[in-house]
């Protein structure tokens, strides 16, 4: 029982990270109807941004950690907007497949450029920072919290708190601001939204900034809990987060969060069993099952095709 609870907590914190990445996929899909394959590499850039900004912004204290997180999110937001401007905007109105392949190209470019830059390099690096006493330390101060026989690391708490804060902020932006209303209008009907005077390009840029910032936060949090980063680190979490987005119903924000949590939980529970080596396959197996019985995902609405 204790072990199950322990696994649930571990799963929740992993799932929260998947949820953050999944939201980026789902938002971009909502406004542009295409899978942004480069998203997983924005996540990777987020982790590296945290790695390089950390020492300058005072990693190791709570304030420094929050600053580093915010810095990484800002870097990723800019990167997301630049990618959209240079690679996707010229293809507006072309077939989805063309944009999809371009996204794959951008993804490969980020991965391989990362491996070639001296400061980044192909080898994994430890996501730790030099402390004043010469010892390495994590991004936030670390302790273990004990409840009876449960052990919760402070990092897991931080992941959950950050995720909840960001999700709340996102909810507020999408439902309570003008630009959020514009985003929802555009995902409902892009042609109609431009007819009522919404600048679709601005909305798309904003969506990319928002989604990429979340991916950046996800990258830093992921790196913090699995303290090793490399240029290819985004691929697997990215794929799983994408699966989470589809699982919840792509284009649906609460669905992406729910899907992320589910994938994280199931994956962690499977890791604790004898078939733990199959854990990377489990996310996809669930996805296939869900899509067979609820093709629009858990919370998605099936659109009736009109002729």
């Amino acid at each position, binding site marked *: 029982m204790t072990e199950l609870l322990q696994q649930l907590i571990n799963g929740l914190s992993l799932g929260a990270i998947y949820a953050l990445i999944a939201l980026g996929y789902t938002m971009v899909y909502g406004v542009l109807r295409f*899978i942004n394959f480069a998203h997983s590499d924005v996540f990777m850039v987020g982790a590296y941004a945290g790695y390089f900004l950390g020492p300058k912004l005072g990693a190791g204290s709570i304030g420094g950690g929050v600053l580093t997180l915010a810095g990484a999110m800002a870097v990723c937001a800019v990167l997301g907007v630049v990618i959209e401007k240079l690679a996707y905007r010229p293809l507006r109105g072309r077939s989805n497949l063309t944009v999809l392949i371009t996204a794959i190209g951008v993804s490969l470019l980020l991965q391989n450029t990362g491996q070639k830059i001296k400061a980044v390099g192909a080898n994994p690096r430890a996501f730790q920072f030099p402390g004043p006493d010469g010892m390495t330390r994590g991004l936030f101060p670390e302790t273990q919290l004990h409840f009876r026989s449960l052990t919760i690391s402070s990092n897991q708490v931080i992941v959950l708190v950050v995720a909840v804060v960001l999700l709340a902020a996102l909810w507020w932006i999408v439902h309570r601001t003008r630009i959020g209303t514009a985003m929802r209008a555009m995902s409902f009907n892009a042609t109609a939204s431009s007819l009522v005077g919404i600048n679709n390009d601005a909305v798309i840029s904003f969506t990319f900034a928002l989604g990429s910032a979340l991916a950046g936060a996800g990258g830093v949090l992921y790196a913090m809990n699995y303290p090793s980063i490399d240029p290819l680190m985004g691929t697997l979490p990215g794929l799983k987060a994408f699966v989470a987005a589809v699982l919840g119903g792509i284009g649906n924000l609460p669905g992406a969060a729910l899907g992320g949590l589910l994938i994280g939980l199931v994956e962690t529970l499977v890791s604790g069993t004898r078939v733990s080596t199959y854990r990377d396959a489990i996310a996809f197996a669930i996805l296939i099952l869900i899509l067979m019985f609820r093709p629009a995902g858990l919370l998605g609405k099936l659109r009736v095709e009109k002729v």
Partner: protein
Amino acid sequence: MVLPKSQLWLVVVLLVAGGVSAFSGRIDPYVLDVAMGVGIAITQASSLNLINGFTGQFSLGHAGFMAVGAYSSAMLTTTLGPKLGVSTAVLQWVLFPASLLLGGLVAALAGLAVGAPSLRLKGDYLAIVTLGFGEIIKVILQNVDAVGGARGLVGIPDYTNLFWTFSVAAVTVYVVWGLLNSTYGRGFLAVADDEVAAEAMGLNTTRYKITAFVVGSFFAGVAGGLYAHLKGYLNPGGFDFNKSIEIVVMVILGGMGRHVGVIIAAIVLVVLNETLRSFGEYRMILYSLLLIVLMLTRPQGLFTWTRRKPSAA
């Protein structure tokens, strides 16, 4: 005897492949290796073209079916081969084609198992299910010790030669071409053009999609068998998402649903990949940049000169 033009082409290619193959001892081994890679790439790209190009579906799991075929055929030749006690020539000309056929059939079965339930899905969803299937295959192969697990399968005899690679490529192109130009095969194009309209005309669209998927998977499996006996070594990691993407790129650069364009794209990409080797570590950066630039400038495919009605996909 007068054969229809298409069959004449097939016979000519088979004869040329056999003829050139007889002199393969005199060809530079490196060139030979690249040439065989080209043959396998043509098989892969043409078979995926049937699914992604002509039938308008979007599979991202072609490498998974290739892996199924590669492992099945390699298991047959490595386990049964030594026990038969016959000469290498017999193995290469009898057991090897049988193993390729087995690889194709097992891959086709896998295609049926994946396609039948998932082809009800459309577009991006189908892409993601096939991608998921490819990943599952990889993880299973990494965990099954009988096929070497994560270490990979070693000691596969090198039966693949120019004749086999190009015969298979020619047969694949011929079958795909013949299928599409048959009365039945027009249905594939109808499904790609407008699924709802095709259904309204009484076509069983799901069945067409599954057929395309199974035939495409069959040839992916055969290509996998060729690949296994070319490299002599199989590693589950080699059949990942990036491998599927590589094949998808060939189909898209060739112009979805074009026979000759896709063949040229397969040749160009394999040769390009080799040429870029001289740039060493910068190869993949150049490759990805080229991909982006090509998509921005020639999204209709590199070798498509006549304008075609933009498809809804």
